[in-house]
């Protein structure tokens, strides 16, 4: 298990994603899978940076876990309770002119990852993203 904790600020996004990339590759994911996992992680981290702490500064913690047949990313924050899975999904079959900008991120997360779990424990949001190794 590897863990990084940084202030939930946009300037730290690169560092957090580098951390995920490094661990994804170390776990043996293909370049294609690693890139997709980073897209999913970015979306989850951006949600925390943008929405978790509306009135204060807070931190985001990113944990990467290699369980042998799976690679898991666990995103944690102590911000306002927020279940990303509650967001409506966009209709990706609509013509581009009618597409809405919101909801695309969570749609991508669900498509990329094999399993996503949101939990609220005490004052923590815990969002777990799991990718099966092939």
């Amino acid at each position, binding site marked *: 298990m590897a863990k990084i904790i940084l202030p939930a600020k946009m300037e730290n996004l690169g560092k957090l994603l580098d951390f995920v990339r490094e661990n994804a590759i170390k776990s043996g994911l293909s370049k294609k899978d690693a890139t997709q996992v980073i897209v999913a992680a970015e979306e989850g981290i951006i949600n925390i940076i943008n929405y978790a702490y509306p009135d204060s500064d807070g931190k985001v913690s990113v944990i990467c876990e290699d369980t042998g047949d799976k690679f898991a990313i666990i995103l944690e924050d102590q911000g306002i309770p927020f279940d990303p899975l509650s967001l409506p999904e966009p209709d*990706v079959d609509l013509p*581009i002119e009618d597409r809405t900008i919101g909801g695309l991120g969570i749609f991508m997360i669900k498509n990329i990852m094999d399993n996503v779990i949101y939990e609220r424990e005490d004052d923590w949001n815990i969002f777990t993203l799991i990718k099966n190794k092939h």
Partner: protein
Amino acid sequence: MENKILVTCKDGIAKAELTGRLDATSAPTLQNALKEILGEKIEHLVLLVKDLEYISSAGLRVIIFTKQKIGVDAKLYLIQPQDTVLEIIKMSGLDNFMIIQDSFEE
């Protein structure tokens, strides 16, 4: 690879050359560069992505937003995408609205 965004517009053809990573930190730069040319008549929006290594949904949103602004008749091209980028675009369904090819001939 260093992130670089170069947007030009001439004779109805807008070109955006994207290098490196198009993520939540670099997408606003592209959005602003494209906003500059929105006043012009654009028939073709050409994304030159040979050296683009990564695109996240922040980047996809800029593409959707721009296509909506330039109108139904404008054609959207994706030129020489790397496999990793193409996979993400296909997953979002945006490939249905793009002409994906190896080069753009004016």
